[in-house]
């Protein structure tokens, strides 16, 4: 497997509009400050990235940001969806992240037990 194989994806994109565009219905932002990283934020981000790949969630974008400001609740994840209030999750880990993907992102029901109160 080498990088040239990316061209196959590009060739298919000529025919498949969905491959070319990526409308983000949902944006997932993982806080990645020093204390977040020390408490596992990278693994949380990896889980979201992996699930997007596995489940082919073409309308979900995941990115990172800096310190979120609540060191005792890190790793923190914000889920933005147009027309809905942002949901902020605290003390996340890979297992909880998978549950958020299934219940909130795919099925539209935020996991309230992981959410923290809006500031």
């Amino acid at each position: 497997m080498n990088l040239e194989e990316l061209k196959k994806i590009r060739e298919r994109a000529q025919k498949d509009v969905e491959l070319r565009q990526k409308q983000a219905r949902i944006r997932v932002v993982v806080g990645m400050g020093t204390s977040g990283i020390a408490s596992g934020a990278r693994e949380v981000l990896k889980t979201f990235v992996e699930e997007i790949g596995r489940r082919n969630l073409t309308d979900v974008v995941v990115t990172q940001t800096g310190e979120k400001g609540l060191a005792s609740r890190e790793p923190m994840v914000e889920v933005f969806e147009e027309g809905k209030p942002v949901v902020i999750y605290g003390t996340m880990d890979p297992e909880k992240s998978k549950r958020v993907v299934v219940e909130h992102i795919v099925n539209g029901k935020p996991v309230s037990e992981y959410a923290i109160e809006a500031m």
Partner: protein
Amino acid sequence: MMDEIASHIMDIVANSLTAQAKNISVVIEKCVDGPLLILDIKDDGVGMDNEMAMKVQDPFFSTKTGRKVGLGIPLLKGTAETTGGAFSLVSEPGRGTQIRATFNAGHPDLPPLGNLKDTILVLAVGNPEVNFLFRYKNSVKEFILDTAEVKDLLGGVPINHPEVISFLSKYLDEHL
């Protein structure tokens, strides 16, 4: 201390991203003819003047409002020096910043390299507007990933498209 060198990489790169870097290079090199492990992270972000460059090495300084500590750089510096290595930070306003940390690979306090694959994957895919050049070199191989090249090969397909994520994940598993 961070558990892994890879965590330090995530942390320092987070600074580069905050500094609005568009191009970030990360080089990890395990020297062939000695115990040295080199970590070199360079960005083209806003950079800092000499005074700021000194301040960021102080654990009680932070650029974040309302924070009393900024530990990322001091932690890396501490790890490097504890293991008998060295730390340097070079920066110029408007040009960018380069951080270089060396470690004595034989030292008992050196954290493991850690999960480089995941680190590279999440950085490349989680920051699609930024170009990363990753280089890992040890005595048996050299691995290079240039996300600008990846995006070029992809044409207009975004680097964070699920198919590309799956591809990159497998590619990293196979080659790194």
